[in-house]
Structure formats: structure tokens, C-alpha cells
């Protein structure tokens, strides 16, 4: 039997999920602009206030409250690149993050550890990070690396640097790493530079991106602002992880939580893009509900997945790469 070619047809190239319609994304966007314009965001950093002032925001220096005209926010969204290149130490480790491309990474950062030998539940150490990095390095489907744990055996002021050293020397994958503050951020950049050979090489292929979190509701703390600007100045990417807790630091209803988180991330995006236009930026979330009966953060709840799916959809609406919690 002859089976001739068919005229074009509509195909699903895979399964997908209807999370939010364009109308619903638009509604969240407009609600966000409303909050940013009328209530604004608390920004705890002199230089950041300066940058935002210069960029067209209304800055109340005394109370450190910044209000954002709609156009400032929408300009920043347009300036940020749609594709994020997560460079590894070797070209074969590079991962392209854009549109609907899905990859997985591990969780970070745990502060406790179940010792596989003794079964003891204890604080994590630098040695644990080294082992975790090596395990993750070997796992094909964990495509980028988030430092999994924290060097509790080192003083807090230098933990981020130890975390970075333990990680960078044990996996070639792209790193998402929280540098804690500007001082440690500089040192982490020094370690990266030493590994790739030169500052120039690091700028060309930054194998590490800073990860940092606003504080809900609606606060950009000093270290957060500093890290966001430092990443932009050094040609590095920055991952902003919204950490609102629905019912605790944001409304119980997920719609309202998405607005709060969107305000925090977009205001951070404005600071990032005003520092350096076109800086690579990832829209992230690790938001979950607070179980109001148990007073715990419920990362295992269905709502966590629902929020993450909605954030992935919102990021796509903004043509920004996304990084969301799940698992």
C-alpha cells in the first residue's frame, strides 16, 4: 500500500502543562506593577539606591523605599537576555537555558547531613561538600551544580569561600553559588579566575553564577543588592531565588504569593539591568507554603510544585530563563 506524504499537521513534540493563560500572566504582571509603583520595595544599600534613582525610580532615601514607574520595570524586562549560557569548566559541560528547555540540578543549600556510614544526623562540613560535588559531577542528569551544603566547620565569615573552593575543584559543571556578601563574592571570583586562568577567560565563560534571595515581603537586603550589582559589573550571571512563604511572608493564596515574589524579582532585575544593561539574569523560586498548623515550610506540598510551575510559566511570559524548585 502506498502511504503518501501528509500535508502539515499540528504536533505535540512532548507533554506539557497548562499552568497560566496569557490573560492570567498579564493579570499577575499588572498587579505586580501596581505594587511596585504604589507600595514599592525596601532597598538596603546606598549605591543601589543611587543606581535606581539614576534609572528613573522614585527613591525615599530616609526610609530606603523605592517606587518603580511601570516603564522602568518593563524596560528592564526587555533588556535582559532570553538565553542564559551556563558555562562549565569545559565546553562539553555548557548548558543552554532558554524558553521551554528543561534541565535538573540538585538542591542547595542543606545545613544538616545524614552520615551514610554512622547514620548520624549532623551539621555539614567542607569534606561533605567535596563528596557531594564529586557525586553530582558523575550524574549525567544533574546538569548544573548548586553547592549542596555548607562548610559548618569553617567560621561563618569565610564559609562561602570554602564552599566555592570545595565545589569548584570537584566538579566541572556550571555553579550556582550564594557568596553571602560582597567581600566573599570578590574572593569567589578570585578562585574562579585562578581555575580558568585569567580574568579575561572568566568573563568570556563565567563558570559560576551568583545566587541570592530577596527577603519577603518586598525587601532587597544590603548583601543581596551588592551581589546583584557585583555580578553585573563582572559580566557574571545572577540567579534570583524568590523565597516567599505563602501564609508566612506572603498571602496564603498562591496568586498573591506570585505577585509578591514577582515584585521582589523584577525590582532586583531593574537594579541588575541598570547596573549593566543586558546582564544575564535567571528568574528563580524556592517558594512554598507555610503550613499554618505545623508552622513549617512545606517544600513537599503540592502547592510547591504548583508555584514552581507557575513561575516557569511567568518567566517564559517575560522571556527570561527560569530556575524553580521541584523534588
Amino acid at each position, binding site marked *: 500500500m502506498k502511504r503518501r506524504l501528509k500535508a502539515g499537521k499540528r504536533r505535540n513534540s512532548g507533554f506539557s502543562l497548562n499552568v497560566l493563560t496569557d490573560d492570567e500572566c498579564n493579570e499577575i504582571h499588572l498587579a505586580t506593577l501596581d505594587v511596585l509603583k504604589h*507600595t514599592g520595595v525596601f532597598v538596603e544599600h546606598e549605591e543601589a539606591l543611587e543606581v535606581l534613582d539614576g534609572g528613573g525610580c522614585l527613591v525615599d532615601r530616609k526610609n530606603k523605599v523605592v517606587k518603580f514607574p511601570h516603564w522602568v520595570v518593563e524596560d528592564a524586562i526587555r533588556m535582559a537576555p532570553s538565553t542564559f549560557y551556563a558555562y562549565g569548566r569545559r565546553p562539553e559541560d555548557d548548558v543552554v537555558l532558554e524558553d521551554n528547555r528543561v534541565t535538573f540540578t540538585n538542591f542547595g543549600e542543606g545545613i544538616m547531613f545524614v552520615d551514610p556510614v554512622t547514620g548520624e544526623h549532623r551539621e555539614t562540613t567542607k569534606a561533605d561538600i567535596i563528596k557531594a560535588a564529586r557525586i553530582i559531577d558523575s550524574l549525567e542528569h544533574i546538569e548544573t551544580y548548586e553547592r549542596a551544603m555548607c562548610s559548618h566547620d569553617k567560621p561563618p565569615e569565610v564559609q562561602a569561600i570554602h564552599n566555592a573552593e570545595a565545589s569548584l575543584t570537584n566538579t566541572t559543571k556550571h555553579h550556582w553559588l550564594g557568596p553571602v556578601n560582597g567581600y566573599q563574592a570578590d574572593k569567589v571570583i578570585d578562585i574562579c579566575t585562578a581555575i580558568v586562568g585569567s580574568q579575561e577567560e572568566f568573563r568570556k565563560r563565567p563558570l559560576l553564577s551568583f545566587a541570592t534571595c530577596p527577603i519577603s515581603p518586598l525587601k532587597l537586603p544590603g548583601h543581596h543588592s551588592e551581589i546583584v550589582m557585583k555580578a553585573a559589573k563582572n559580566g557574571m550571571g545572577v540567579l534570583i531565588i524568590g523565597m516567599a512563604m505563602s*501564609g508566612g511572608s506572603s498571602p*496564603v*493564596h498562591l496568586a498573591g504569593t506570585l*505577585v509578591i515574589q514577582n515584585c521582589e524579582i523584577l525590582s532586583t532585575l531593574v537594579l541588575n539591568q541598570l547596573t549593566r544593561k543586558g546582564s544575564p539574569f535567571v528568574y528563580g523560586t524556592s517558594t512554598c507554603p507555610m503550613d499554618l498548623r505545623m508552622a513549617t515550610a*512545606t517544600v513537599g506540598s503540592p502547592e510547591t510544585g504548583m508555584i514552581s510551575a507557575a513561575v516557569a510559566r511567568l518567566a517564559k511570559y517575560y522571556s527570561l530563563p527560569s530556575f524553580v524548585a521541584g523534588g
Partner: protein
Amino acid sequence: MVDLAAASVGGMENFRKRPIFTANVCPISPLTLPNNTCEVVMEAARLGVGVNVMPMALSGGTSSATLAGTLVTHNAEVLSAIVLAQLSQKGMPCTYASTSTILDLRFGTSAIGCPEYGMINASIAKLAQYYRLPSFVGGGASDSKLPDIQSGYEFTLSATLSALAGANIVFGSGALEQGLTIDYAKIVMDAEMIRMIQIALKGIEITDEKLAMDVIHEVGHGGAYITHEHSLRSMRSQSQTKLFDRRSRNDWLELTQGKELRDQAYQTAIEILQRHQPYALPNGASKATSEIVSEFEKELKKGGK
């Protein structure tokens, strides 16, 4: 079986009005309606009972190694049984069912914890919708031998895929070891996860009320939602767990002494057996049902069907 069902609802007239039992039939892949399937379909038609047509095509074994090809033979098997049903009794209720999956060609087992199980069954749910037939598809069964982490992962992937496809019934709770073994702990744990999947199905409502703009402006920067009256008023909209643990580690240890979930699930099953009484049968029904069973056994001894 129809006699039994009729007895338990107080007579054939009641049963015909609200048939509480549907006959499952399984065509044999590839493309065979065996004798017993045909017989049950035609007898069901006469008795006013619906049928649930459930092939178990094994991609790579009894159907094409490609999933698209498997859907074709699966569909042919279901539709041919439905033709027989509708020719026997026009308008007879038919449910489009599936437990098709892949034959794991390395182990020679019908893998039902695999992603393909969810993918095939989600697609079957869509096909049933295309034909405007109610669907009854697999999702949530496991290849693990124990109600362990593997069984939890496998339950969640295929049950969620089938649920998101809009299947009318997703079956698989309690099944381990390619469906050969049933486990009480798994049934109880799966039921908890089903509640979670159902919450996810609701999605996120984006409305003025749920955006809560007044509250957001009022709380402002750095304020607390946890103490706001709005949170107290809306807290019941949050998902709540019964079996899964969301407590802090200390509270969990104190309450459970670190007992694993599956041990608690067995405990729950035992408590249910001690506590739960199903709704009582109509008067005389339990006598009637035991008579039907003993008569059937006598017939069998005499060499009846």
C-alpha cells in the same frame, strides 16, 4: 455476579435502575477478542450491565515496540469490543480502558512503574475523550516489591500523568510487582498522594480576591502575613497532610519515634480494619448472597459451567 449485586441492593429492579457493578473485559493483544470476552460482553448487554474494555498490550511483546503503534492496536481491540457491545444492545454503557505498557525486553517483565506506562495511559485518556467515551486508565502501579521509595516515585509519575490528561478513573493504588502483589501500606499511602494530586489539578486561581492586593499594600515591606487576619481566614485553603509528615524534626521524632512512613501506613490500615464498618446491606441480603455463592459451588461440583 449480577445476582450477587442485585441481592446486595435489594433486588433486580433496583439493580437495573442503579447497576453498582460493571463488567471488566480484557481483549488479548494483539487483536483478539477471546471467547470469554465476547461472552461477557453479550451477557452484560442482556443484563443491562456496562462493560469496561481493558486491553493490556505490551509494547515490544504483544504490540509494536513503538508507542504510536501500540496505541493503534490497543484502539482496535477496544473499538472492536465496543462494536460487539453496541450491536448486542444499542446504547450499552462502555468505558474505554487501558493497562497497556511496555515489555521490558531486558527483564522480560511487563513494567508498570515505567514512564511509558503513564505516557500510554495518559494518551489513552485523550483518545477516550476524542471518542467521547468515559475512560479508565492505569496510573500509580509500581514494579517495586516493597511499598518503598521506588513505589512512591513510580506511583507519582504515572498517576500524575494520567490525572493531568483528565482520565475519569486512574487505577493502580496498592499495586506492587507488576500488579502481582497488593500492599495495604501502599493503598493507604497512595490515597494520601491522590489528595495531593487532586489539589494540583485545581491549579492556581488568578482573581482579584486571590491576588489579595489590598492585603499586599497594607502589609507592605517587611511586615508579617502570618499574623494578618486574612491568613487566618484563608488558611483552610492550604493543602493538609494526614499521613505524610510536615512537622519539624524534633516534633516528628517525638510523635513517631522516627518510624518510617510505610510502618505508619500499615498501622493506619490496621486501625481502619478495627474501626471502619461499611454501610449495612439491606435486610436479608447477606443471607441471599451466601446462598448464591453456595449454589454456584454446588453447580461447579456437578460440572456446570
